[in-house]
């Protein structure tokens, strides 16, 4: 009978070895202790449940907190058991161990593999196909990242200038922003989450913007540059605030896209009103069309559309609103300072 317990810091190296042996040889979490600690260290423990058979780790279930609230929203991460060791339902046991012991309001995370859909169905969770929005730069004549046949048609943007999108150099600027709104969306992410996730990442450099109107921050937008073959794109990976300001956000982002020569900006998300998004200037990717390709993978680069799936608790009072970098997503696959270094 395997022992199931929370991981301790002393388990860090064995867990990295587990990742190498049972997830994928050379997986970044098997070689980057910094990233492993960043993703899972919580004081003197690690946010993972593990199953041990003697000294062998035979299963893990990780989780991440979206806020520092006493009862935060959680994302599951790194769910893996070794075939043939322990109970055939060891994975469920590990998950149950966490669900029963970690106070939480709601479970939600993107990045679910299609083969896991029946598991989440049995668990009563929602299966979500995330939307992929894009705004192409009409000034870029040669596309090396995306393939958008009619990219020369600039997005229809809000004509009347509204609030301004400005870069945020320090998280402190955002300390007073009401991250934990009561609009019913989940997961709820707080200032502490944003500051740590995007201003202290050990590998990725994020660009954070805020939409400002008369000194008041209306929205916070987190982006990351990706590159391939000397070209680059701007990915929106997180969004805070009222989406009704999206038109001003897109207008501001598009200025950045054009001024800095990005091929396009894109945003993988769910829970944002498609009509509002398209009115704001985003074009929604049709996965059935082959003439419009906006890649998902850059490390290594793969020029094809990829559907991103998410799972979320079925909760009567919470509407899932997920962004690309939620949970353990937007994680590096290779040890480079940023994806642009892969461009050559």
């Amino acid at each position, binding site marked *: 009978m395997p022992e199931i317990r929370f991981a301790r810091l002393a388990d860090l190296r064995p867990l990295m070895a587990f990742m190498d042996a049972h997830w994928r040889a050379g997986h970044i979490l098997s070689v980057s202790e910094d990233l492993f600690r960043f993703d899972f260290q919580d004081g003197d423990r690690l946010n993972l449940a593990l199953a041990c058979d003697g000294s062998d780790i035979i299963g893990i279930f990780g989780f991440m907190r979206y806020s520092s609230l006493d009862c935060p929203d959680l994302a599951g991460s790194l769910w893996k*058991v070794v*075939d043939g060791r322990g*109970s*055939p*339902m*060891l*994975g*469920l*046991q590990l*998950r*149950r161990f966490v669900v029963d012991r970690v106070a939480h309001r709601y479970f939600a995370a993107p990045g679910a593999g299609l*083969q*896991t859909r*029946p*598991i989440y*169905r*049995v*668990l*009563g969770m929602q299966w979500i196909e995330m939307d992929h929005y894009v705004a192409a730069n009409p000034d870029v004549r040669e596309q090396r990242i995306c393939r958008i046949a009619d990219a020369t048609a600039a997005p229809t943007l809000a004509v009347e200038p509204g609030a301004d999108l400005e870069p945020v150099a320090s998280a402190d600027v955002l300390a007073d922003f009401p991250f934990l709104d009561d609009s019913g969306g989940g997961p709820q992410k707080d200032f502490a989450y944003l500051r740590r996730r995007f201003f202290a990442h050990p590998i990725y450099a994020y660009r954070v913007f805020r939409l400002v109107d008369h000194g008041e921050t209306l929205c916070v937008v987190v982006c990351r540059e990706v590159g391939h073959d000397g070209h680059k794109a701007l990915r929106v990976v997180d969004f805070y605030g009222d989406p009704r300001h999206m038109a001003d956000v897109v207008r501001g982002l598009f200025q950045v896209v054009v001024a800095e020569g990005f091929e396009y900006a894109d945003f993988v998300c769910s829970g944002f009103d498609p009509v509002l998004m398209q009115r704001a200037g985003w074009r929604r990717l049709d996965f059935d069309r082959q003439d419009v390709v906006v890649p998902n993978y850059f490390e290594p680069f793969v020029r094809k559309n990829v559907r991103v799936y998410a799972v979320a608790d079925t909760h009567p009072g919470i509407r899932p609103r997920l962004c690309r970098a939620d949970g353990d997503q937007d994680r590096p696959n290779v040890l480079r300072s940023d994806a642009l270094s892969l461009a050559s």
Partner: protein
Amino acid sequence: MTGAAAEFIVRHIADRRGVSTEEIDCQADMFETGYIDSLGVFNMIVLLEEEFGVRFSDQELIDPALYTVTSLASSIARKSANGDA
């Protein structure tokens, strides 16, 4: 209902393994015999839930008492009788 559920499970296993239904031992542990694996069982549970209008919790699925065709089919029959949808 037990008969119908057992028949459904046996047919499901036999189809996936490419064997005849007679070869399935309804008293044997479905995992130990290799009738089903820890991912495949969820596909089967989804089908059973749809076919018989019942629901299983993760707590129930963790219980090894449900790992034979007979015990799983009996559980479905009990749930159906109790209106445990």
